[in-house]
């Protein structure tokens, strides 16, 4: 009970399938929807950094624009993944509320994609980052179907599953992930859940955050501030 209370703000920790090693960092992400301006810098930087295929339907990181109309209906758009920014298509007089939602891998602690992989090619690193081993992946697409957030795609040339690595190669070199480096408004924050001084802890304490699809109990480590219930 005491332990449960201590970790209550971080549902991911409470339900972690693998107990994280305390000596290593355990990364999580925060996105402030109130600060996002939908410029698409994150999506552009991700494609350039990770050699993601240029076709407009392959993304590791993308942005969606949600518009709630006065009559209560919802309009969602993500032209080309938001890579070239957005033009509002709903007339201003009909808009009740509009906002951008940047999306990327949630790096779940109880990842559905890890659980369904028949060959163990998808795994969770000791830092809590979900990765794919290209040498083992057989391209069966189970993980692509299993991800409730649509964060995976089949790489057209490699014929293996591909996804956000939280720029693991950059983290290991002491650099920030590309999408965090280029965000002009600082809407994206990442940090170590084990480090109480990390900017992520400040973000989690100062905001009332939510994860996507909490009912699925995936242990998502992507925390949004200002997330409307309409976002799926």
């Amino acid at each position, binding site marked *: 009970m005491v332990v449960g209370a201590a970790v209550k703000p971080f549902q991911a920790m409470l339900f972690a399938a693998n107990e994280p090693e305390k000596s290593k960092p355990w990364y999580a992400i925060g996105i402030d929807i109130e600060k996002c*301006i939908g410029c698409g810098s994150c999506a552009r930087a991700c494609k350039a950094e990770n050699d993601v295929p240029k076709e407009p339907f392959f993304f590791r990181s993308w942005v969606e624009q949600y518009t709630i109309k006065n009559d209560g209906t919802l309009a969602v758009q993500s032209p080309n993944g938001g890579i070239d920014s957005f033009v509002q298509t709903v007339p201003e007089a009909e808009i009740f509320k*509009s906002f951008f939602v940047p999306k990327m891998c949630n790096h779940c602690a109880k990842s559905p994609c890890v659980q369904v992989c028949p060959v163990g090619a998808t795994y969770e690193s000791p830092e809590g980052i979900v990765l794919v081993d290209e040498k083992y992946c057989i391209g069966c697409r189970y993980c692509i179907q299993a991800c409730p957030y649509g964060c995976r795609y089949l790489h057209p040339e490699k014929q293996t599953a591909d996804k956000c690595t939280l720029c*693991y190669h950059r983290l290991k070199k002491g650099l920030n992930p590309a999408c965090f480096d280029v965000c002009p408004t600082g809407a994206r924050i990442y940090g170590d859940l084990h480090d109480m001084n990390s900017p992520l802890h400040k973000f989690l304490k100062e905001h009332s955050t939510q994860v996507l699809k909490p009912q699925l109990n995936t242990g998502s480590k992507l925390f949004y501030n200002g997330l409307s219930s309409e976002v799926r």
Partner: protein
Amino acid sequence: MDEIAALPAHHIGKAACTDCHDTEAAKLSSDLHTGLSCEVCHGPGYQHMDDPEKYKLNKPGTREFCGKCHDLNPARRTEVIHQIDIKTHNIERADCIDCHNPHAVWEMKD
């Protein structure tokens, strides 16, 4: 895991850019765009850092490019971002950089 960790980084970061372009970096730090990484507008700089003569970076400044952040959109909060209507704002001049210096926004050109 080691193979992924060994991949090269394409975005080099503001500190690496500042090593050579210190005047521009100082100007950028002096004004509203201070929080921006150079690579937000100029694109990833890894090739340029290896061979600056062969690989040149983008120098964008068109209405379309600046509009990606600054065009009027009801989803953008006015307290977060300064917005103008790129279709009507000062249409006598073609591009944003005809008047504004992107490194120091309110340093107007004639």
